[in-house]
């Protein structure tokens, strides 16, 4: 039992985080919005150069052969900056999925070189980042099809989050596009990584509230000296503190693939979603009317948190998994960790 990240994990997370915080400031986000560009090519190139996309790819495919746990802190950091580029989806979902396919038709190599493949999973009718995709992994029932960008028609489905470029995709499944059967744990990976991003987003909303509350003066003193504001912010921080270890544990347990492991992922999504929801709304309140405006940066993070809360399974669906686990499996103090429960 050692519930802590290794030195290596901390080092790579720290490096990724510093790069993201530096290259993806709110000012950068605003510039990118004005330019209406789906991605910042320089940042995307840096991300690829750092090897972040290849973290989970097998070593014989030119990757680093790491696991979800190694990516989890980076996903938090991506959430913290509201990263528009699909780093987490590429590294944590697409790469492992391609690596699992018997014949990925060379797309794993291409993704590792910076190409983008996006996922149309049966759980969600919308496909994110379709307009910058080179290829698509699409669902026909439980079958997985690999379709290149020239063989699909995409229609924008505008999202509340301007950086979530959602589309519906029309295409025709055929024997030549079929590459595999069964989505496996893709939805759980999606839910887990969304949860990690939401932890980062929640913390960002709190940090914004803290810095605003230090500066904004009313009745002759900073509003952050009043308990009403302090307690609201502290309560949001408590939510984050008790969602984060669940997300970390879920990353370590997900590969077990058992019901307790899936329930942990569901718990992670519920807890991180609640933390992000509470932190973002708290932050709006702390900003007063400014919190409702386009002008302050808060809305970037609020919107992403909002969207991720509905992505990769709703809260109601996650609750069902948790309830299923409670009914079917041992509970109690010797059943904390999924590894203690046999399947």
């Amino acid at each position, binding site marked *: *039992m*050692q*519930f*802590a*990240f*290794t030195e290596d*994990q901390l080092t790579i997370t720290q490096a990724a985080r510093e790069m993201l915080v530096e290259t993806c400031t709110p000012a950068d986000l605003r510039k990118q919005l004005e330019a209406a560009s789906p991605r910042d090519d320089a940042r995307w190139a840096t991300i690829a150069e750092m090897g972040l996309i290849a973290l989970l790819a097998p070593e014989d495919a030119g990757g680093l052969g790491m696991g979800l*746990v190694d990516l989890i802190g980076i996903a938090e950091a991506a959430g913290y900056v509201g990263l528009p580029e699909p780093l987490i989806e590429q590294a944590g979902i697409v790469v492992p999925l391609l690596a699992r396919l018997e014949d990925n038709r060379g797309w794993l190599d291409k993704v590792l070189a910076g190409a983008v493949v996006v996922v149309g999973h049966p759980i969600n009718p919308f496909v994110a980042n379709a307009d910058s995709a080179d290829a698509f992994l699409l669902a026909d029932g439980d079958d997985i099809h690999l379709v290149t960008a020239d063989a699909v028609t995409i229609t924008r489905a505008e999202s509340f989050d301007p950086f979530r470029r959602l589309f519906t995709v029309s295409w025709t499944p055929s024997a030549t596009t079929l590459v595999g059967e069964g989505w496996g744990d893709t939805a759980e990976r999606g839910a887990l990584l969304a949860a990690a991003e939401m932890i980062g987003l929640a913390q960002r909303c*709190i940090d914004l509230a*803290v810095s605003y*509350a*230090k500066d904004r003066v009313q009745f002759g003193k*900073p509003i*952050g*000296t*009043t*308990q009403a*504001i*302090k*307690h609201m*912010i*502290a*309560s949001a*921080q*408590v939510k984050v*503190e*008790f*969602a984060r*270890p*669940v997300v*970390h*544990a879920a*990353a*370590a*347990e997900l590969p077990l693939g058992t019901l307790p492991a899936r329930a942990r992922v569901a*718990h992670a999504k*519920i*807890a991180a979603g609640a933390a992000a929801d509470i932190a973002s709304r708290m932050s709006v309140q702390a900003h007063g009317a400014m919190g409702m405006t386009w002008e302050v940066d808060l809305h970037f993070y609020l919107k992403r948190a909002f969207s991720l809360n509905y992505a990769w399974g709703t809260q109601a669906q996650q*609750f069902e998994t*948790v*309830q299923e686990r*409670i*009914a079917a499996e041992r*509970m*109690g*103090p*010797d059943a*904390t*960790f*999924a*590894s*203690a429960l046999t399947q």
Partner: protein
Amino acid sequence: MKLDYTPEQQAFRAEVRSWMEANVPAGKLPSFDLTRQGFEAHRDWERKLSQGQWGMVTWPEAYGGRALDLIRWLIFEEEYYRAGAPTRVNQNGIFLLGPTMMEFGTDDQKQRFLPRMAAGDDIWAQAWSEPGAGSDLAAVRSTCTRDGDEYVLNGQKIWSTRAVFADWAFGLFREPGSERHKGMSLILFPLDAPGVTRRPIARMDGEMVFAEIFLDNVRVPVADRLGDEGQGWHVCMATAGFERGLMLRSPARYQVAAQKLAALYHANKANLPASIGERVAQHWMDADAYALSIYSTASRLEAGGKIGPESSTNKIFWSEMDVALHQTALDILGPRAELLGQSTDGVSPVDWLDGFIFALAGPIYAGSNEIQRNIIAERMLGLPRG
């Protein structure tokens, strides 16, 4: 990150489990708050624990412990609650004063007090609060006047849990004339010393869980001051860190409660709306989230980390979880929730009601949750003081 137990840890769990199976009293012990007899029954249990060297597993062997790491302490606690073993009558001593004494005590104090504490020979009460000093602990007025090798203690303490029958207390006193955080000392005193009067205070349900302590020229040796003279505040804050951070409420307690709640829910499910099922699931998640958080803190501390103001988030989390969990149990019981007796259909509403009343105090003691939120805002997040 390794979220499974090593074979050694599993063997340890098995060892605790079989000892508990052989030794945990079959029936519930009489309350340690109501009668001296109940208190002594719990002291006997503490003695039995220490004979098995289970009094405080993280303590050095010289003081009656096993020098085990925090992960094993957690496993021990898990098996303790799993076995339904009695509530620790000496938790103020072993979980709060003990760790403080290891850090600040003299060798002589450690030799004199720790083995007796581990053995249940001395049961301790915490005498910090006063009628005028609750949340504002720096407003303590009780005094310690130095007289050669002795202190003379005067004043009044209140809300001392288990002080009705306890043997010793650790209290916060100030040099006459000193103010606020300066001039305070943490002093150990026997509760049967001449000049000490104890008056039990009834809780809302009539149980005498705490007491007032009146001190009238009580003489104690200077050697029974814990930490340096005038450094009482500093020492106390270290104790408070243990109280909120890790030791006072180990997660197993809530995991067992969530397990019982799920059983109550499943037995009554047919007549309940689906929303109750989601609440039960939420409480199970919260209990597990607390366990995960403590495991990760323990791993961090084992690797040499320190616990900081984030321990205040623990205090808020477990106390609010406890109230909410019991509230759901009472909602499941419905009209039976208010019953004091045992009901006929196998559930004991009064156990849940007891738990609820106990839980209600959680957001108040060990530093109220309002104070914890101030600490999080100011010391963890850096917001300005008011």
